[in-house]
């Protein structure tokens, strides 16, 4: 039977604060489910609840048919591997020892745990550093070890919270390869990121996280189709306009769907960019903006994110 993660109306309210996660429902089967959103959008809170370390204020979460917070909660956790955003590592133990420790928590025998630890260190490219104390590891190494910890129990459901933060480009590619392999092995992967390119590269399904809710969900193609059936004219000015709101409205020309101003960068959404681009340039010069560069881009997930939430993945922006 295929293992599925089901979230029904999950909610997390901290005392005195707004809901960090508000009424989220989803069903995640095999594949890579990417939760895309900037800092504070509720990704970690949601994944913590799914990983079984944070109790929802309301709602129900089941993993492989077992209620995570019910009487068989420990059973449900057997199916989960979790790489939290903050690496759960003992600095005085070596990478190898940390892995063995977690393997033992997962019920492996000492012999199995040792074998599994060596195997996973190899997988995440830490075999050379296996016997060094984790306190001496770099941030990227800790991150990779944390991913290995998530895999130690051969889980059906792998929860990875910002696994690529702090990795150099090569290590990031290698991590992506591992994640793709997890999908090919038929696992359910839940991955949080604030990188649109990571979502684009990996996601079987993207969940646009915004202020604690899933604002939109679908495959990358579906989302682009739904939210940006237009291209983007990217205009980089020499400096940011003194009044972004005014600059924005001066660019809302015929044929322009929307304009987003982020510092000196203008994103102009239009169905026929080749026709609109010269007019945009003209209008900008008229408005007194010195243009440094103009490009026509295919829409990206970043644009989708903006269209859906009105904010960018780096934080709040100005625009439609």
């Amino acid at each position, binding site marked *: 039977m295929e293992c599925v993660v089901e979230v029904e109306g999950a909610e997390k309210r*901290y005392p005195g604060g707004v809901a960090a996660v508000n009424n989220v429902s989803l069903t995640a089967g095999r594949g890579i489910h990417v939760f895309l959103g900037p800092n504070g959008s509720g990704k970690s*809170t949601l994944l*913590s609840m799914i*990983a*079984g*370390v*944070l*109790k929802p204020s309301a709602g129900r979460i089941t993993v492989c048919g077992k209620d995570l917070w019910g009487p068989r909660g*420990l*059973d449900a*956790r*057997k199916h*989960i591997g*979790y790489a*939290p955003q*903050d*690496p*759960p*590592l*003992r*600095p*005085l*133990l070596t990478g190898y*020892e940390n892995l*063995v*420790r*977690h*393997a*033992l*928590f*997962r*019920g*492996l*025998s*000492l012999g199995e*745990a040792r074998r599994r630890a060596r195997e996973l260190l190899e997988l995440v490219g830490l075999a050379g550093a296996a016997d060094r*104390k984790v306190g001496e590891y770099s941030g990227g190494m800790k991150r990779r070890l944390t991913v290995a*910890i998530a895999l130690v*129990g051969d889980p059906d459901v792998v*929860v990875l919270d910002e696994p690529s933060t702090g990795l150099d480009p090569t290590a990031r590619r290698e991590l992506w390869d591992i994640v793709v392999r997890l999908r090919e092995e038929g696992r359910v992967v839940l991955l949080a990121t604030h990188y649109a390119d990571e979502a684009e590269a990996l996601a079987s399904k993207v969940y646009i996280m915004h202020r604690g809710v899933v604002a939109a969900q679908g495959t990358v193609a579906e989302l682009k189709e739904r939210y940006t059936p237009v291209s983007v004219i990217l205009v980089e000015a020499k400096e940011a306009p003194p009044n972004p709101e005014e600059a924005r409205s001066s660019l809302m020309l015929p044929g322009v769907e929307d304009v987003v101003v982020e510092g000196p960068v203008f994103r102009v959404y239009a169905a026929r960019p080749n026709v609109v681009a010269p007019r945009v340039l003209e209008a900008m010069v008229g408005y007194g903006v010195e243009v440094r560069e103009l490009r026509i881009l295919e829409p990206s997930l970043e644009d989708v994110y903006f269209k859906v939430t009105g904010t960018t993945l780096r934080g709040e922006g100005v625009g439609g």
Partner: protein
Amino acid sequence: MAAKGPITAIVLGGLKELVRDKTSLFWILVFPVIMVLISGGLWANPNPRPTPVGVYVDDTSSGPFNATLVTMAMEETGMFEIKHYDSLQSMLDDIAEDGSPPLGLYFPQGFAANASSGMPASIVVYRVNVSELWVEVDQSKLLGFLSGMEDRVRLTILNYALPHAPPGYRGYLEALADPLKTRVEEVNTAREVSQAVIAGYMAISMVVVEALFIGLNVGASMIHEERESGGLRALLSSPVPSWAILAGYTLTTMVYIALAGLASVAAGFLIGAEYRGLTPGILAASAVMVVLAGLFTMGLGLLLAPLARSAKGANGLATAIAFPLMFLGGIWIPAWMLPEPFRTFAHYFPLSRLSDALKLMIVYGGTPLEALSMTPPVLVVAIIAVYAVGTITYRRMLSMMVEKA
């Protein structure tokens, strides 16, 4: 069994971390050794100064074995510094005023005549009424001297009397001969104080002191440490029941205490401790008592955990509580030396009872049964209750952390 792996993981990890963490190593292995060596060194020569002893002679009778002979013999040993008084009252006043001299020797009327003629002769030792160890030592020195003296008197009497006695009467005479009637006034105890006993006492005390420090520290800080290192998240997302985490940490505590205990006992050897009667029975009873001590202190530590916000804070709190308990709980300093109300507190304090029971067996040669009588069921129940309430506190903290993460 599902919990075996997690427990192994916690204990193995704990041991490895101990070996790599210089601070923990110090407290568990170096600190007890230093404490035992220093305190044993202090005691090794318990009283180098001559003990001041006041002497008042009320005796006008005569005989070869008289007060002058006794006091001269005392001075000759170099162990005593005699101060003569011309009235009993002035001697008692000096003792009462500031305990200087702490001891007085009173030779009543008829001492010389009686002692020299084979009649029982009375002698009174006055002792300042404070529970201070030096006084104990001084007093036992004096009593030791007097009993040596008595042996010599006895021998003289026997040698004098035996030629006149029918054959076979020697035993009867020996039994009868009790020439010196020594009476000690205002005595609290007259305990045996030898280097072997002192060293043993310190070493076994240190085992319990370590149980106090380790249990409180591990119990108070474990949940904070797991949370700060992120390990709690990993544990909560794995199929490990909370009791297994607790069992792992409790076992780790026991292993730490065992290591510290071995270090203390070994340090005791270095300063000449004699451990009497290390029979399998005593070892087993001792193990049970050390485990009880560990459960008690770990339970206390778990109760302290919610009062702290971080592992560092928890360790500070645990140490702040352990230090006074070490001195005022009747563990390191014997209960009888403590002022009220600490003496009463120590009497009911489980660690003091356990430590006394351990010393009774290991230092004073008592039997396991005698030791067990010092740890009555109510004490065991109390200890287990403290641990149980501690575990409930732990579980409540854990479920609070699941709400907040």
